[in-house]
């Protein structure tokens, strides 16, 4: 892999830090007029998900990481493992249930998603920003309620629970923003 100097590092680049693949979030150039130049770099460890900030002496180098995002389809899960297939090459990948983190609550069979591969092995899966899912369980709404107000919890077909307005009923299909885990709107069938 390529090696980058701290001044070439940009947001979104994938690099190896402490032997873990990380994605750069921000790189700030800090330099006293007559002193040592630094790069204050903020990054997310792609294995642990932790966001960290650390300072490098300007001009130091950081190796790139073989990390790529590929579009894929979630096929099925066999109880302990989740199976995916990439859209372009039809290659299949398997991920351990415990490595799926947040994404699994939004995925149903045939859902589109993004697989992050590190050295050819799936590291993470990201659900689409918006998903359309059916409500399988929620309390009956109160008549006359318009949107706004407190809302109520609703369980979706994938097992996720989101807050929905009181007028939304069991069996309805809704659009959810997965990044914040919030109800967006009802969707007509």
């Amino acid at each position, binding site marked *: 892999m390529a090696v980058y100097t701290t*001044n070439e590092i940009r947001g979104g680049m994938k690099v190896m*830090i402490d032997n873990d693949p990380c994605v750069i979030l921000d790189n*700030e*150039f*800090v*330099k*006293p*007029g*007559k*002193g*040592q*130049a*630094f790069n*204050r770099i903020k990054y997310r460890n792609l294995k642990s998900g932790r966001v*960290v*900030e*650390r*300072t*490098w*002496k*300007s001009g*130091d180098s950081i190796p790139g990481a073989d990390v790529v995002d590929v579009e894929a389809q979630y096929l099925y899960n066999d109880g302990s493992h989740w199976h995916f297939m990439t859209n372009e090459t039809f290659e299949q990948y398997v991920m351990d249930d415990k490595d799926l983190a947040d994404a699994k609550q939004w995925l149903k069979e045939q859902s589109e998603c993004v697989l992050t591969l590190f050295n050819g092995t799936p590291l993470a899966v990201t659900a689409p920003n918006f998903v359309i899912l059916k409500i399988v369980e929620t309390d009956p709404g109160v008549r006359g309620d318009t949107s706004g107000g407190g809302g109520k919890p609703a369980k979706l077909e994938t097992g996720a629970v989101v807050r929905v307005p009181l007028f939304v009923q069991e069996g309805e299909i809704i659009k959810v923003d997965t990044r914040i885990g919030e109800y967006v709107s009802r969707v007509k069938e």
Partner: protein
Amino acid sequence: MKSQDAWRPSACLHHLKRRAEILANIRQFFSERQVLEVETPLMCQFTVTDPHVTGIPALYQSMGSSITRTLFLQTSPEYAMKRLLAAGIGSIYQISKAFRQGEVGRLHNPEFTMLEWYRLDFDHHALMDEMDALLQQILKTPPAERVSYGDLFRHYLGINPHTADEAVLIASAAEKNIPVSGTLPNRDAWLDLLWTHYIEPLVGQIRPLFLYDFPVSQAALAKIRNESQPVASRFEVYFKGIELANGFHELQDGKEQAKRFVLDLALRKELGISERLIDDRLLAALEHGLPACAGVALGIDRLMMLALECDQIADVISFAFDKA
């Protein structure tokens, strides 16, 4: 940014109009004080030996000749202005472009505008008074606070920056949770780290901070006072997280200055960065005699950022580096 907008200025036109007014205001400030405006070359034979400042080369070719000379775009007009001072010109100021290799960021543009001025018979405290008057006029700031480098480090970190050894500075960075990858080259770099990452964000937020009397290892072109604790008669100006200016009670001793340049060259070698020639024209001017004076350089673009309440330097420059 959409590519069809690539031709557009970085700064909005309102900012550029305000910028022109502020520049006129600064010239008025110096005119009232009988300080003469001068111009010195942007393209020079020599560049600085300072290991932390890198000049940008410019290639010059005589008409019809295949021989190319490497000149440098100035990193500051300091040396040429000192040669004018040695020639007897009196108190002077200059507003000019300066260039520094590789310095791009929220507060840095490789080509930037610098205001530099020299006052005969001022020491660094007298020059701080004048700097304060200028900031009050341009930025409407309350009177600045003055704290010595030593007092600030003692207050915030409990260490004496003039005497603490490198291990103490490293431990202090760890204690204040400043994670560093690898190691830094020397004691001064650790001081720079503690200053920029820990102390600077805590000071100079409401009124400008004038930081003065630096460690002798950071004297650069300032006089060193051999008091019980030797210190360099140097000051810097900080306001709202922005380093705005750097000034010296100027060193007049050419032999001492030559020694410091040689030390710079040794440090460059140690750091594995390119060699430099020492500007012997500056040294000759110092030998001839630099009048007692203090001088300071102020980043005009950063001053504009503060005056116009902008978050990044590109917001006050007609065409920032990526659009130049």
